[in-house]
């Protein structure tokens, strides 16, 4: 029969030679390869302690940014939710009251902001749609969980902290988006 491809190999049940029968050379050459790898550069990292630098295109756990004065940027305009192809974002707006000016930048803010992380496909259209530079996809990996309910991230999981130590740096991502926008615009 003619072979369909040239990749097929004929199996030959030939008798092994003496050197092959004692197995030692094969074992030693295998051990030599193992030994070589001891002195090679390691590929694996001890993940939670050590982290690999992420590419700026990496899109992970979302963050809702605050401005320099610690006020939330998001005004619940709903553009991220309408841009979201997976319909993962829901929000409820509320009016800022007197005395809350240090918490919210605009007179309207998101009282409820939820992203269903099981629905989210991390496409980044929400950050592209955002007119207030409020939402960004960061290089943080979304933690795993056993309960589906825990994947609906509310504002407690999304908004960054007020104090500088708890801020989440998105400058690399921001620069990348900017370059992407001006690049595609021309």
């Amino acid at each position, binding site marked *: 029969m003619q072979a369909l491809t040239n990749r097929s190999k004929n199996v030959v049940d030939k008798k092994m030679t003496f050197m092959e029968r004692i197995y030692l050379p094969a074992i030693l050459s295998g051990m030599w390869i193992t030994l070589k790898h001891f002195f090679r550069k390691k590929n694996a990292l001890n993940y939670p302690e050590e982290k690999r630098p992420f590419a700026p295109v990496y899109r992970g756990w979302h963050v809702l940014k605050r401005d320099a004065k610690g006020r939330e940027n998001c*005004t619940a*305009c709903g553009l991220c939710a*309408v841009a979201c192809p997976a*319909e993962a974002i829901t929000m409820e*707006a509320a009016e800022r009251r007197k005395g809350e000016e240090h918490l919210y930048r605009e007179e309207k803010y998101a009282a409820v902001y939820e992203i269903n992380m099981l629905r989210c496909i991390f496409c980044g259209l929400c950050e592209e749609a955002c*007119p207030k530079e409020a939402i960004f996809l960061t290089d943080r990996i979304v933690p795993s969980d056993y309960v589906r309910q825990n994947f609906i991230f509310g504002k407690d999981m999304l908004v960054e902290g007020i104090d500088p130590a708890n801020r989440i740096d998105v400058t690399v991502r921001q620069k990348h988006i900017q370059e992407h926008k001006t690049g595609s615009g021309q």
Partner: protein
Amino acid sequence: MPKVKIDNFEIEVPDGTTILNAARQIGGDIVPPAMCYYSTLQGSGGKCRTCLVKVTKGSEKDPRPMPKLVASCQQTVMDGMEVANITSEEVLNARKGVVEFLLINHPLDCPICDQAGECHLQDLAFEHGAEQTRYEFERRTFEKIDIGPYIKLHMTRCILCYRCVYTANQLTDNRVHGIINRGDHAEISTFIEKAIDNDFSGNVIDVCPVGALTDRTFRFKSRVWFLNPMNAHRDCPTCSGKAVVWMYGNEIFRVTARKDKYDEVHDFICNTCRFEKKALSDWTVEGPRDIDRHSVISQNHYEGQTQTVR
């Protein structure tokens, strides 16, 4: 019956028809946009200048072109008149300038504004405006005013189209709503911020082309594109009772009058229907409204005729 040619489309219209209305009878792209003209309000128009067109031939008897661009909502047609709207570079440039002027004092707070998504100025700027503003000075700002328990006036966003004033004049019996001061200082006012308590005062919200007059019962509740507009009616002793209810699930978020394709209301509705009847049991829902496919409101909606698969 005078014959008029608009962008090379010929139409015969009755005497006294304006160019804008003649263009609307032809329909399509050649209809000039209008921010202040409102067909159901007498005397409206001539303020915003977005409907400017070029008359290239005055009439059969006097074929000279008109020296300046004219406001098509005010200029009546004459026999043999030839009008250029989108075919004239001059008109498109002038319109771009008008949009820039309208946006000089208009705040760019669309993410906050309740009108966003159904705002005429947004559409106008998107279709005819420049991408960026050249204006560098401080914009004029006003304090927000509550006109009664239902209406919020945010004067900063107003483009002074006077539509609400005409509505207040023509729909309500005693005028408590007008414009004070002049020119750059002009301001919609109810005179000493007095509440309007006429039954039809809520219609000023519908006629407002921008977000200057908004519904306080709907303030920041949702965005228009998250809601499903449904035709609905109820037995109302004061008005026709024909309205649009904007629903989210089984909840009615707001009620507006029915607008035609130029966003003009023909059946004005009363305040009871608009502000107080927000339970589903108050209304007989007829079915979903036809939404323009290009409108943001049609996002994530099934709309138009659905056909059965054979």
